[in-house]
């Protein structure tokens, strides 16, 4: 699961859609050979992890039914349900208010409302702790009034708040798209049949939005399961945190593997559900042809409450985190010079991200080609299997590589190559997607023309295909680069001793309770996420235009 907006916002790209090209790729066997190798490399660690967990036998089953384990499962499901509900309860009205009503500056609100997904959950969590936590900023302000204790932020409440703010935009996006696609004639017909506005919404509008709501909510649920930063910092004991604790403190890796297995099972179940609903979305499209302008609903006296409603998640999800970080930055770091270690960390992060992006871009090439040009069921399966990094939580992938590395690559444990491999598995889908969408925009007849002018297949690749896909492939690489920069759980588990990135720096600063040092790396990370999001949206737009 990615920390940024996942490419599955456009449902088609999660598992890829496959244009029907009658064009056959030359030297397919070679391409298949390499692709199979890459997919195996991506799948093996997780497969090994599952084997180990299953191999635990009776002791494993006994552990699974311990009270602590049951508690973890219960906590995870509780958080997931709560986050899904609140994401839907914020996302649906938000989409409706910014799409169908005369809310002032609704386009601006919409863009601002999507911004919380740009703030990595561990960052917003740190700022919430700083503001609402014990001895926090808010308490400092309230102290003169004699208020010395605030409600507990650690635990369920804090985790729920942070993840909800991070995920509700995933409901807003599909619901808004569905609202724009609605045929206004249906609502007018219902009105003319004597239904009140409220009943029209409940009986005509809402049923048509159901698949979009379900899809977006399931996405939020998936995030709540896979998130590490927020739950770990809020000390709420769910799968990801428990796995990390088992791995780091007790060194009982078998147990970590068992927890990971249950988490994988839960994630895959949700994913299947999401696919099921997103498949239905297509059937619900109505009025594809030229449509009339959808009538705006006049909010009248509900204007102020509506404005408050859309402003609240924006204040909590963007303005507080960014504001607090800015305050830290100007308040302290301006007087103290930037610590030397910071530049070190930044160089580290840039260096490792660059290598990871390069490796991923190269590894994604053959898969992207298969995905864009081959239409067999086998190639489709192969490509969707390479999307494992998009599906499983980062902590699981990190753990899988630890197991796999210790058993099969002992010399590489806690070295750069294993870390790069972890990033590779996680972000391969980004590059495969970018390569695929770049290739689908290259009309196969260019390649045919080059062949008929006497070029051999590899000459065609070099002189025609590669120059045409270069921009797309590079933008995929940049996306990987930016994602690695802000990656937390995989880095925590796999990084060599003493190796720090911006994200792990924030993590360790949090544990040292030195919040003010977060200002600079935090703002850098927010900028990085914003650029990633912008890149993804740009790519989606490009590929939809091409179709």
């Amino acid at each position, binding site marked *: 699961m990615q920390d940024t907006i996942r490419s599955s916002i456009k449902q088609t790209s999660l598992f890829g859609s496959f244009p029907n090209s*009658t064009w056959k790729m030359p030297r397919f066997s070679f391409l298949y050979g390499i692709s199979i190798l890459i997919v195996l490399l991506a799948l093996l660690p997780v497969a090994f992890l599952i084997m180990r967990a299953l191999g635990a036998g009776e002791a494993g089953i006994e552990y699974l039914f311990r009270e602590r384990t049951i508690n973890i499962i219960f906590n995870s499901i509780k958080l997931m349900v709560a986050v899904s509900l609140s994401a839907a309860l914020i996302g649906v009205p938000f989409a409706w208010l910014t799409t169908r009503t005369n809310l002032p500056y609704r386009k601006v609100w919409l863009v601002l409302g999507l911004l919380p997904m740009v703030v990595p959950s561990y960052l917003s969590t740190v700022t919430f702790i700083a503001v609402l936590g014990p001895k926090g900023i808010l308490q400092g302000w309230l102290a003169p009034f004699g208020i010395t204790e605030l409600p507990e932020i650690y635990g369920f409440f804090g985790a729920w708040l942070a993840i909800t703010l991070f995920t509700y935009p995933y409901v807003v996006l599909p619901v808004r798209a569905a609202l724009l696609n609605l045929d206004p004639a249906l609502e007018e017909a219902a009105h003319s049949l004597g239904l009140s506005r409220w009943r029209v919404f409940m009986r005509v509008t809402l049923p048509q939005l159901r698949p979009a709501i379900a899809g977006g909510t399931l996405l939020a649920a998936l995030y709540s399961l896979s998130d590490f930063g927020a739950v770990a910092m809020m000390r709420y004991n769910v799968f990801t945190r428990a796995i990390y604790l088992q791995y780091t403190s007790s060194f009982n890796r078998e147990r970590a593997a068992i927890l990971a297995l249950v988490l994988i099972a839960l994630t895959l179940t949700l994913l299947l559900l999401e696919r099921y609903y997103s498949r239905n979305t297509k059937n619900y499209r109505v009025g594809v042809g030229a449509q009339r302008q959808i009538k705006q609903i006049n909010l009248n006296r509900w204007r102020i409450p509506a404005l408050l409603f859309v402003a609240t998640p924006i204040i909590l999800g963007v303005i507080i985190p960014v504001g607090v970080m800015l305050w830290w930055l100007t308040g302290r770091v301006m007087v103290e010079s930037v610590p030397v270690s910071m530049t070190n960390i930044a160089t580290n992060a840039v260096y490792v991200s660059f290598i990871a992006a390069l490796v991923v871009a190269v590894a994604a090439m053959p898969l992207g080609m298969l995905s864009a040009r081959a239409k067999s069921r086998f190639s489709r399966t192969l490509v969707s299997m390479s999307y494992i990094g998009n599906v499983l939580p980062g902590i699981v992938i990190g753990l899988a590589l630890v197991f796999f590395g210790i058993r099969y690559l002992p010399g590489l444990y806690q070295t750069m190559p294993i870390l790069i491999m972890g990033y590779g598995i996680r972000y391969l889908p980004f590059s495969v997607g970018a390569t695929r969408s770049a290739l689908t925009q290259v009309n196969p*007849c260019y390649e045919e023309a080059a062949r008929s002018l006497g070029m051999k297949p590899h000459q065609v690749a070099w002189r025609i295909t590669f120059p045409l896909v270069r921009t797309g492939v590079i933008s995929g690489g940049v996306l990987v680069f930016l994602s690695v920069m802000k990656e937390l759980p995989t880095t925590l588990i796999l990084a060599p001793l003493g190796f720090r990135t911006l994200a792990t720096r924030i993590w360790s600063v949090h544990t040292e309770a030195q919040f003010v040092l977060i200002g600079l790396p935090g703002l850098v990370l927010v900028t990085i996420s914003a650029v990633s999001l912008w890149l993804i949206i740009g790519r989606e737009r490009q590929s939809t235009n091409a179709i």
Partner: protein
Amino acid sequence: MFYALECTHLTKQFDGTAAVKDASLRIHNGGFLTLLGPSGCGKTTTLRLIAGFETPDSGKISVHQTDITDLPIEKRRVGMVFQEYALFPHINVGENIAFGLQGNKHQKADQIAHLLRLLGLDGLTDRMPHQLSGGQQQRVALARALAPQPRVLLLDEPFSNLDATLRAQVRRDVKNILKETGITCVFVTHDQEEALSLSDQIAVMFDGRVFQIGTPHEIYAQPINRDVADFVGEANFIPAEAHGDTATSIFGQTKLQRTAHGQVELVIRPEMLHIQGGTSDTGISASVQWIDYYGHDQRLGILLENGTPLVARINAHTFYEIDQVVRVSLPHAVHAFS
């Protein structure tokens, strides 16, 4: 003269449905063969089989008496002009044309200059493809395909993306250029007018099969069956009893172009019907049902007394009215098939 291209018994299936069924074609060196048929008839697949973009399930393709069925695309020396032109968007006109050329810079420059002149593209060498008009792109595509001097040139509906007003002119220019180079061409179109005016030979395809091969005149005047007659121009069909070089039908005794016997159908092109005012004593009686006036000529829908509807094409200066009674006759020998 020898055959520059021979396809024998080509068959190609996609996912179990046959796109091309047992198609055989051959063209003399320097000839211009058109594959004509409705969309989905397999004409483009046939072209792609010849180019090597698809591999036939069975059958053989020879160019200049050499079997090329298993040769890779780049070794076939078969050029192609694509419907969308497929000009490489990242390189300029000169580089596009030079793409398939061998030799040193100097030789290439000479050849490019020659092709630019031949196609009337002087001065456009440094333009990028997107800076060209549709007609210019079309000629660059042609120049690029001609540059490596292929033995056979394939053209996949190259005129379909041009404005109707441009099309006739471009068509004539292209035909002259191709005649000048003396190259053997296979052309694909669904436009019968284009096929009739450009080709030496036309192969009419339906449903993956080649129904008839012949000169444009043969295809138009002597279609072998109803499908061909219907697709290439407009036709009326009248049942008749043939006995040798005449046939008896509702029009009485009619001369046949070729001898036939037994139950046949007469193929009567609209312009073959002769219409006169009701007072004439030749022909049979009919009434005018509808009139489509085109300026240069007009079409009349007429209904024979036995209820058969016919279409006639007549000159533009004789006027009839709806429901007017006219007399229809068949003054010339007609074509019949059984």
